[in-house]
């Protein structure tokens, strides 16, 4: 009898809960929370408790697949590799490296993301590498980097419970980051004031001191309004503004237009509630802002993020414990995928590809004979647009499922169909993999070593608990083998630990991180530049990364698509507690699927009555992009004239409906607002 409790990190959200996986005779049997883990403290959400379920699903890919007409046939690794390398070489010779697009994965490890961008930049020689951060926090990375010099969560999860005031907006924290929800509950218990700004009456509304329900897409307006009140009532932290920031005057001039009366007209938030919230936030000793997709997934995503940064600086809530601007990252390793350069504009550690010194550094380290392009590559949505237009010919997608996750998926399908050659590497035959020419079976988080970086910049170990299922292989092995077959001699790694050592040598943020230190300490929070550095709990202490914090004057712009006579409702989309993203993992977990077997549209009782819709009835939801049939959930969680659809479910996919209009800077699509119509299906 062999029994082992293997300590690893959860593959669902960005909280970064560590737990034990109990392995009996080589089989993963149970999850047991780890009481010494500083994030979860021995507690888990329903996804964490059931995180090993999908690993043993009979749907797991166990062998490479090669397209054979409308279906696939099983193939050996040699055969699959040989087809891929000959097609890659042929297409590179014919169309050049810029005809390639690579999607890395926020689900895979740091080491694998590092290798994917290294493969793109040194083997294909293109910067066309991106991943789903584009769809969630691209606006955070751009907005916070511009304001502070670093695009990550400023403070840490455990600090949240000690804040005196927490403003939560566009984050359904208890559902999407349950173990951060725990900290909010604790803060409330201690007497902290909770301000919730969200159109929907989510679970946190029950403990909120103030709940402001803005019209979707009006965030710049209410944020400017709150700051207008703070300034007019003399509650701004003038010393902080004077000593630590710049460009205040230009910002001030803009904010002065946003009187509570004006803001009420735009947002629908009663002026007195706005004033109360402003006072509550500004008067707190330490106030923390928590936000997520409700802020970022807009054509004004970067503006929204900059406004959050403005509010934190205006009140001096930066560079101190239990304060800051805290974007909650959605995926287990979306922070790491960004950190390791799976982005078209930066190398690992946010070193710009436009910087000649950085290019030279990586070209030299990777022993390259060709030059890395000096301009940033294409982003996710741009890549797909270019594929549809015939300019991108070949894509290599690892652990992403744009056929469910991206806006306007009819268009995504056209784009992927138009490719000359598509390789998808995943643990399941996803909706995207179904369109591939070659499918490579990856190993799950339980079957490999590596690291994930949680939302609070916390780098933690993923440890191999069981052998890979079937003939699947860890992604780091697959990328390395492909790179070697493409002729590179720079992908000889004995283990993920060796890859981390290379990362540390090239990435100052991760410079002091090694497997040995992670084993000893459990985690390290970046920046961690040297082997004797303790890591960083909160950023911008004493000085901002960029020197002075920059105030941006931000004016309100309405969403790209507003309701009209034909499409009178506002559609907003998101996740729910019981499922994750495209459902690839969570829908293959018995207990999760039992809770919520399919999608639904939340509609207010008054709207439902007008349209003659009863709870549970099938309805038809249409936008300019598409139409779905979906059961109605009649509930006052949503306000009137706004409906909500979770995007996990392919049979009623919210992203057939959503608007691919992009934020001009971050290129994030407006997944949170579009106009729709609803009718009962009789």
């Amino acid at each position, binding site marked *: *009898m*062999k*029994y*082992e*409790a293997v*300590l690893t990190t959860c593959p669902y959200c960005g909280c970064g809960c560590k737990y*034990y996986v*109990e392995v*009996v*005779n080589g089989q993963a*049997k*149970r999850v*047991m*929370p*780890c*009481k*010494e*883990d500083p994030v979860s403290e*021995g*507690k*888990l*959400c*329903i996804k*964490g*408790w059931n995180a090993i379920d999908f690993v043993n699903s009979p749907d797991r890919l166990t062998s490479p697949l090669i397209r054979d007409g409308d279906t696939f046939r099983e193939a050996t690794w040699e055969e699959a590799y040989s087809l891929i390398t000959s097609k890659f070489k042929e297409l590179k010779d014919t169309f050049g490296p810029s005809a390639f697009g690579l999607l890395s994965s926020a689900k895979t490890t740091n080491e694998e993301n590092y290798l994917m961008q290294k493969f793109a930049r040194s083997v294909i020689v293109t910067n066309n590498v991106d991943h789903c951060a584009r769809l969630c926090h691209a606006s955070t990375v751009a907005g916070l980097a511009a304001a502070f010099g670093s695009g990550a969560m400023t403070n840490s999860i455990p600090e949240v419970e000690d804040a005196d005031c927490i403003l939560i907006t566009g984050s359904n924290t*208890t*559902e999407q980051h*349950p*173990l951060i*929800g*725990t900290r909010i*509950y*604790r803060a409330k*218990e201690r007497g902290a004031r909770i301000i919730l700004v969200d159109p929907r009456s989510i*679970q946190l509304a*029950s*403990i909120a001191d103030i709940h402001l329900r803005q019209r979707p897409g009006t965030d710049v307006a209410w944020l400017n309004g709150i700051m207008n009140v703070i300034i007019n009532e003399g509650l701004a932290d003038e010393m902080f503004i004077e000593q630590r920031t710049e460009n205040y005057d230009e910002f001030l001039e803009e904010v002065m237009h946003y009187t509570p009366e004006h803001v009420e007209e735009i947002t629908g938030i009663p002026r007195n509630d706005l004033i109360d919230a402003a006072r509550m936030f500004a008067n707190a000793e330490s106030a923390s802002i928590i936000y997520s997709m409700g802020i970022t997934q807009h054509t004004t995503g970067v503006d929204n993020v900059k406004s959050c940064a403005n509010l934190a600086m205006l009140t001096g809530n930066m560079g101190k414990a239990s304060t800051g601007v805290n974007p909650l990252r959605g995926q287990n390793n979306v922070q790491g995928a960004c950190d390791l350069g799976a982005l078209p504009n930066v190398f690992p550690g946010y070193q710009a590809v436009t910087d000649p010194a950085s290019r030279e550094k990586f070209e030299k380290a990777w022993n390259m004979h060709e030059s890395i392009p000096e301009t940033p590559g294409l982003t996710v949505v741009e890549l797909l647009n270019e594929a549809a237009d015939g300019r991108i010919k070949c894509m290599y997608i690892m652990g992403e499922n744009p056929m469910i996750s991206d806006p306007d998926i009819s268009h995504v399908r056209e784009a992927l169909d138009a490719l000359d050659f598509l390789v998808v590497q995943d643990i399941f035959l996803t909706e995207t993999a179904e369109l591939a020419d070659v499918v490579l079976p990856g190993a799950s988080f339980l079957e490999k070593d590596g690291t994930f970086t949680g939302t609070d910049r916390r780098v933690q170990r993923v440890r191999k608990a069981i052998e890979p299922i079937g003939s699947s292989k860890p992604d780091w092995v697959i990328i390395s083998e492909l790179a070697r077959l493409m002729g590179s001699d720079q992908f000889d790694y004995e283990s993920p630990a060796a890859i981390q050592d290379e990362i540390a040598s090239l990435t100052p943020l991760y410079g002091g991180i090694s497997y040995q230190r992670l*084993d*000893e*300490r*459990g985690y390290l929070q970046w920046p961690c530049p040297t082997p004797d550095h303790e890591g960083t709990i909160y950023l911008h202490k004493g000085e901002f990364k960029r020197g002075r914090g920059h105030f941006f004057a931000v004016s309100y712009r309405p969403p790209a698509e507003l309701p009209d006579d034909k499409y009178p409702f506002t559609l907003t989309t998101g996740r*729910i*507690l*019981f499922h994750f993203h495209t459902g690839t993992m969570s829908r293959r977990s018995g*207990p999760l699927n*039992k*809770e*919520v077997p399919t999608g639904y549209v939340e509609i207010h009782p008054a709207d439902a009555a007008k349209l003659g819709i009863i709870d549970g009835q099938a309805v038809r939801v249409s936008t300019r992009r598409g139409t779905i049939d979906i059961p109605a959930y009649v509930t006052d969680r949503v306000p009137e004239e706004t409906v909500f659809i979770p995007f996990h479910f392919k049979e009623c996919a919210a992203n057939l409906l959503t608007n691919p209009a992009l934020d001009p800077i971050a290129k994030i699509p407006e997944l949170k607002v579009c106009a729709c119509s609803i009718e009962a299906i009789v």
Partner: protein
Amino acid sequence: MNDELRTVAAEILARDGIDGIVGLKEMHGTVRPCLFTDAEQLSCMVVDSRYPVASVVRLLLEEDPDLRLAVVCRGCEERSLIELAKNHQIDIESVTVIGIACDSDTAKECNCSKPYPDSLMVGTALENWTRDTYATYRQMSGEEKLAFWKEQLEKCNKCYGCRNACPVCFCKECELENSLWVKRGRLPPDFPIYHLIRAFHVAGKCIDCGECEQACPAGIPLMTLSHLLREDMEELFDYMAGRSLDEQNPVITKEEYE
């Protein structure tokens, strides 16, 4: 105390007919359950209050019912084993208890009802131990109590952690997942039925270890509930779960037709 435990463990592991010891080991800075099968492993065995080893025993015996195991047990873990045996989840004959006593800090942290096992082998049983008896809660009126629970249970995010962490929850089909009683996929779960089902299902088995409360991400004070239930069971039926192998759970009827 670690040395004392390791000495006792080494002696027991050397006995004929012991396949291994279930206990806790320290590794990578954290403590975790371990199956010790070799004397050399014992150097990392530790006394620690943190993990429900009885559940590990159940998992291992499920896999191989012929295993002969010794188990390092605190008071609550011994009570768990007794309940698991009474409910035919393990064969108590296959288990040798290595009893360890908890210190007063641990006992206080858990608000333990009896911080030592009957088969004590390592450490000294705490004497004159008195626990918090939830006096503030008892002083509330019925209405206040209802409001209190409503507020607390509204935070529940249906992780099922209270059930999953419970050493005496072992049903294959759980009534909490039965949509006849609790609507699926809704947050918070229906008040008060979800929590009532759980409370009543463990009423005759709850050994007051506090794992449910420790596992709760919403910070719901579940120990208050379990303590009062245990108290009722004792007052009404002179029954205490986990006290003895011979006591019958009074809330389970054993009729022929069942």
